[in-house]
């Protein structure tokens, strides 16, 4: 009897703690400045936005943006902690306070707008198919009755469901797993953002990209819902990056060879 009462009290205390910590949250920009570093969620399996190089260093367009933000905040681009996120866990990471900001190829959708604040668009992406070199598939239309890999939490999960309801979707947690699924014949195609598919083709000569980019939508940087001060700061930084040529430089650095396939926001 006594142990049961103890268990109930413990659960109640834990719940109370949850509510308390949620209520005591304060302005992110203030917290970041006080802490002395920015904690940013970036991808690690999404070329050319966020990957890890052979030396274990985070590299990519989004990673450069994170460093640029650190420089603006602390005049030192190293004052940023990069946390690896996936399409599935990035918004929960933000909501739970593990990260201050998501700079990780988040497509802006109305659904997501209800739970985070988005910056102005900084990239436009459609979707393409990644298939084995020998595949005869030319577009999503050819995927009726086939197996299509998508990443859990990515918008293509919904897109494929709507555009090709006759396909069987198989969902993975990471880009790398979806690629392995195509290589191992587990899926006939993998559908994701055009830019990542084009980059994956460069690294995997046994695969090819097919289709014309469909459902183009913008990427935004995301901060916690209601944090208008911080999102305004982010937008100011993005505007400044466009004015001073940083954006153009990053664009050339990462997208020069596939530029013809991209829509500039």
């Amino acid at each position, binding site marked *: 009897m006594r142990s049961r009462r103890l268990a109930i009290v413990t659960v109640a205390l834990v719940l109370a703690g949850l509510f308390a910590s949620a209520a005591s949250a304060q302005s*992110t920009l203030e917290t970041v400045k006080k802490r002395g570093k920015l904690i940013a969620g970036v991808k690690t399996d999404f070329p050319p936005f966020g990957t890890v190089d052979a030396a274990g260093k985070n590299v990519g367009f989004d990673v450069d943006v994170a460093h640029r933000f650190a420089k603006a905040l602390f005049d030192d681009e190293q004052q940023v902690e990069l946390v690896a996120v996936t399409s599935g866990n990035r918004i929960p990471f933000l909501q739970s306070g593990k990260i201050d900001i998501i700079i990780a190829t988040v497509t802006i959708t109305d659904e997501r707008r209800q739970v985070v604040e988005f910056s102005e668009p900084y990239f436009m992406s459609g979707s393409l198919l990644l298939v084995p070199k020998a595949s005869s598939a030319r577009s999503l239309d050819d995927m009726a009755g086939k197996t299509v890999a998508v990443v859990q939490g990515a918008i293509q999960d919904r897109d494929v469901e709507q555009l090709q309801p006759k396909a069987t979707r198989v969902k993975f*947690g990471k880009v790398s797993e979806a690629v392995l699924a195509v290589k*191992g014949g587990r899926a006939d195609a993998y559908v994701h953002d055009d830019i990542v598919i084009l980059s994956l083709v460069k690294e995997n000569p046994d695969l090819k990209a097919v289709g014309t980019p469909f459902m183009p939508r913008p990427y935004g940087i995301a901060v916690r819902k209601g944090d208008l001060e911080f999102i305004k700061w982010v937008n100011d930084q993005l505007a400044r990056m466009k004015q001073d040529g940083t954006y153009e430089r990053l664009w050339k650095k990462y997208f020069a060879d596939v530029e013809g396939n991209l829509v500039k926001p």
Partner: protein
Amino acid sequence: MTGGPAAYAFEWSAVWRGLPYLLQGAGLTVLISGVAMVLAAALGLALAVATQTAGRLVRGLVDAYVELFRNTPLLIQIFIVYFGLPQLGLRLSPFLSGLGALVLYAAAYNAEIFRAGLEAVPKGQHEAALSGGLSPAQALRFVIVPQAVRIAFPALGNNLVSLLKNSSLVSTIGMVELMFVANDISFNNFRTFEIYGAAALVYVILVLALTRLLRVAETRTARPA
């Protein structure tokens, strides 16, 4: 203007809407872990008996298997079976890949549990059975193994509970079980706390049911024949 993040507002209706899908996932969790439990218990017992009766070579092979599968993460085993084997030309279905990895992993533990059980049966039992006119095989089948199973039962039960919870790892290979469904729902509606909380509750219910089942089975095996 402070512009601080809003406090988390709980929305339990998200659980209600997701419940049919969650229960569908729980169905697959029960199926895959249920089948895995039976196979892993049988395989574990067979291996343990083999180490006690067969020659040194078999014992060595079983030892190698046990050490290999106990000392590597289950997730790696699942990935090797699902992603690795197709590159060597063996493509099992996602269900069989997940099931195979779960069985091999759990059976390695079960083999050790049953071996300890077999070794705990007093030597006199074996001698008494033989002098009573039973053949060595009969002695094993009717005297030694039943006692060993009874001794091993509590440890076996713990391992089966672990197996049930470990089945959540097959979500990584696209198996639409409870963990996968929880991910799938919360990645789209972002009600992280509510959905994972509900999934955790379902796991608790499943484990409690399994524990009850095991207790009934234990009393049955403990009853003198």
